[in-house]
């Protein structure tokens, strides 16, 4: 079923259509939230809230073409909101890099399964070291595949700024990953074994 019809049915209260929409979008929504928050439990909570909000706001998005970037804006707002609140709480999820290494070598927990590969774990860890705007450019453009124009739209910054940030952000991420690999404990050697 195409997106326009699916959205129309959802707006009319068709529960089956809503279920399909949730199933179609949940992977993307969770990946984005995880990119922002870096914590599995929080991701699941916030992602649920996002779907509840989406359900209530469906009437606001009348153009199916604009649905993806509209949804991304909802996700982004919820994540920034959550991060703002998190700042007010005592830190819990600031796991030092060394601990991450030992986590990686211990038996797999649910969060480990989300990383799937050593490289992805490295990327997530390194993303937390980037500036906010560079992290968002990576999340939206390089991971979610948005165009420069869409990124500029979602972040509400000029297109020129996004263009100049795009390469810079990627380079900074690569440097942060390289630094982690060469960390005090020798990092995650498996991540660079297979070189493309």
């Amino acid at each position, binding site marked *: 079923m195409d997106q326009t019809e699916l959205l129309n049915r959802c707006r009319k209260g068709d529960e089956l259509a809503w279920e399909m929409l949730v199933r179609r979008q949940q992977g993307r929504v969770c990946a984005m939230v995880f990119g922002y928050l870096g914590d599995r439990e929080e991701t699941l909570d916030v992602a649920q809230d996002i779907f509840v909000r989406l359900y209530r706001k469906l009437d606001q998005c009348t153009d199916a073409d604009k649905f993806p970037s509209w949804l991304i804006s909802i996700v982004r707002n919820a994540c920034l909101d959550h991060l703002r609140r998190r700042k007010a709480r005592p830190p819990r999820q600031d796991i030092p890099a060394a601990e991450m290494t030992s986590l990686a070598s211990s038996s797999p927990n649910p969060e480990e399964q989300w990383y799937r590969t050593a490289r992805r774990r490295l*990327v997530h860890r390194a993303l937390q070291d980037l500036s906010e705007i560079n992290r968002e450019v990576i999340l939206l453009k390089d991971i979610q595949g948005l165009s420069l124009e869409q990124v500029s739209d979602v972040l509400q910054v000029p297109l020129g700024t996004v263009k100049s940030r795009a390469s810079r952000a990627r380079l900074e991420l690569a440097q942060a990953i390289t630094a982690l690999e060469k960390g005090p404990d020798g990092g995650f050697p498996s991540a660079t074994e297979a070189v493309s």
Partner: protein
Amino acid sequence: MRRFDDKDDRNEDLVRSILDRTSGPACSRALEHLPGLVDNNLDSGDRVLVQAHLENCPGCRSVAVVLGWMGTELPAMAEIDPGEEFTAAVLARTARLPSRAAAAGHLTGAAGLVDRLGNWWEERIQRPLFAWQVAYALTVLLTVLTIAPGAPLHGVPRQILAGVEAGPARLSVLGGAFTTVDQGVAQGAGFLKDSVWGGIRSDVGRRVQSTELARDHLGRDVQGAWREIRHKRTGPALMRLSAAGSDFQEIWRLWWRSNSINQSSTAERSSS
């Protein structure tokens, strides 16, 4: 895994010492070009030079290697399977909400009214103008409490009074009530000046932006409180209302954080 024999090592040392005494290491320039190299959009001259640098610089080479695999690894991170439990939890939560048909106005009786009120509030509070109007209403209220003879809050900062100067003349939602209060305040204190209006707009835009997240949150908490009230869960309802109170405080704090209503309006007046 040594790449060079002794002669190469000596050459490399020589190159480094020359660079150290002349231009300095070329790494930052090489790094700048790496995304272009990986994306294959460097001109041929730059490409040759960067590749030559990479052959001799292990530091830049490892960054290039990472950039290389990022190109395939990042897009593969666009989705995460949260599991069937997640889907079930979302569907259970949305099933408890008023159905979309009800939200459109088909639910009758007190429950329908409460739902509609909750939805109305959540939609409204996320609109900048409405949030501004609410903040304004509170300002007017506070002002009345402070300038009336024998008022309990007599002597509040002029900053708050300045907000009243900014009073909206056209209010789509509560216009009539505001206008009445407006006039009372204007007569009582002489604060309502039309000339200030133009200068207020840009200032309001900024304040609207700074309170966006807090407003979003207030909407959610109030909506949550309505839901709990409707299900007769007093404890959770009180908690959500208390959270909404904190949200309102946050909006209030952000709204008045800078005392620039007077400044910006004065500046615009003098520039026009």
